[in-house]
């Protein structure tokens, strides 16, 4: 079957920065805001999303010729729900404290727009190698976005990074606790989005993709 559309390598590279799911496509905001109060929950969530995205993309790409047009979103969602159940049970069994911290946001990966969008845009139209490359690229891009936001919030709010104390240990009054609470999440993401748009336009013209939300 002829492979029309971007090659696997292009899909992989696009997913990391040019079509970064959080900063460019503005997808998957719910876990981005919710689990980035520390680096450890953020990286666990990135790993879970990577697992579900890769598996769902692979399966969808393998059955792409059997999908009826008006039922395809339901089929994507059921596939994703199966893998999320696996990921959730795995986390509950082997990383119970982290599973409690992540709370309801692991099952919410089911309705995460990133995975459904990648299934719809890429996996249902291209062969398994391209879908796999797309999934890996987007997962790396998502992990990068989560890491930047979580680093800012954790360092400013707690003075630690990945749980290791860095600054402001002993002088607790300098910790900007708001960063660990919901308002801090919104404001950090807003400012970092602005920064990403500014860097993109300074590097030449890529900010057009970031403005598509207007």
């Amino acid at each position, binding site marked *: 079957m002829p492979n029309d559309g971007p090659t696997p390598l292009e899909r992989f590279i696009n997913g990391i920065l040019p079509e970064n799911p959080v900063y460019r496509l*503005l*997808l998957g*905001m*719910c876990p981005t*805001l*919710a689990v980035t109060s520390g680096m450890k929950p953020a990286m666990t969530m990135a790993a879970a999303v990577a697992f579900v995205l890769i598996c769902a993309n692979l399966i969808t790409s393998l059955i792409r010729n059997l999908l009826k047009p008006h039922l395809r*979103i*339901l089929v994507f*969602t*059921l596939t994703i*729900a*199966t893998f*999320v*159940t696996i990921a*959730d*049970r795995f986390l509950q069994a082997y990383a119970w404290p982290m599973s409690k911290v992540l709370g*309801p946001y692991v*099952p*919410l990966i*089911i*309705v995460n*727009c990133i995975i*459904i969008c990648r299934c719809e845009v890429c996996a249902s139209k291209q062969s398994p190698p391209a879908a796999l490359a797309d999934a890996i690229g987007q997962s790396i891009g998502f992990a990068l976005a989560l890491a930047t936001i979580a680093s800012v919030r954790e360092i400013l709010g707690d003075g630690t990074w990945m749980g290791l104390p860095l600054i402001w240990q002993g002088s607790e009054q300098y910790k900007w606790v*708001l960063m660990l*609470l*919901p*308002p*801090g*999440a*919104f*404001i950090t*993401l*807003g*400012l970092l*989005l*602005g*920064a990403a*748009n*500014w860097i993109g*336009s300074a590097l030449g013209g890529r*900010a057009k993709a*970031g*403005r598509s*939300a*207007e």
Partner: protein
Amino acid sequence: MEHVAQLILIAVGAALINNFVLKYFVGICPFLGVSRRLDTAFGMGCAVTFVISVAAALSWTCTYFILRPGAPLTAWVWSLVSPGSDAVVDLSILNYIVYIFVIASSVQLVEMYVRKFFPSLYKSFGVFLPLITTNCAILFACLEIMKHVSGAGPAEMWGLDKALILAFFGGVGFTIAIVIMAGIREELDACDVPAPLRGAGITLIVAGILALAFMGFTGVDKSLADLLR
């Protein structure tokens, strides 16, 4: 009176204190995407409230009667298949799949209802109505109800009334947040926002200030509980 007090506390908690959008970060996609004009925002809020209530009712029924450990229907079927066995059948591994099925069907139901009885509203919604299926808020409401039904003893088990109150007032809280945001964004149109922040950036910063304001509701449930006692 004690039961009504609990219902009031759940309602106020879901709508204001633990607002779905501003505290739990669910439903951000329509919150950022549909909040440009006041009338579309209010319409989206009402649609989400409607779908959340229907989906919560259906998912509570499935969880209570079929999925939870020791559920009546499953226990009855098991007793027909292997009589005399005292094993507790636990189908809760199918929770997420059943919930997403229920949500997709609720959205279909609501879409058919709106198309039959409010055709102009259906036209103005366009593609946003099927997109409510991927709205985190609805699955989040189902998960909150699951927390209180699946694996809960008879004392703290949530009935259909508490589940519906949580879902409906969660939707009301979402509507409040999105309407406030739409009002602010209509004013922002006349302001000079720096180019990198236009669109999603400034909306998120405004949402952060809104979340800060809603943090003022913390502790209201304690005082309300003391008042109602």
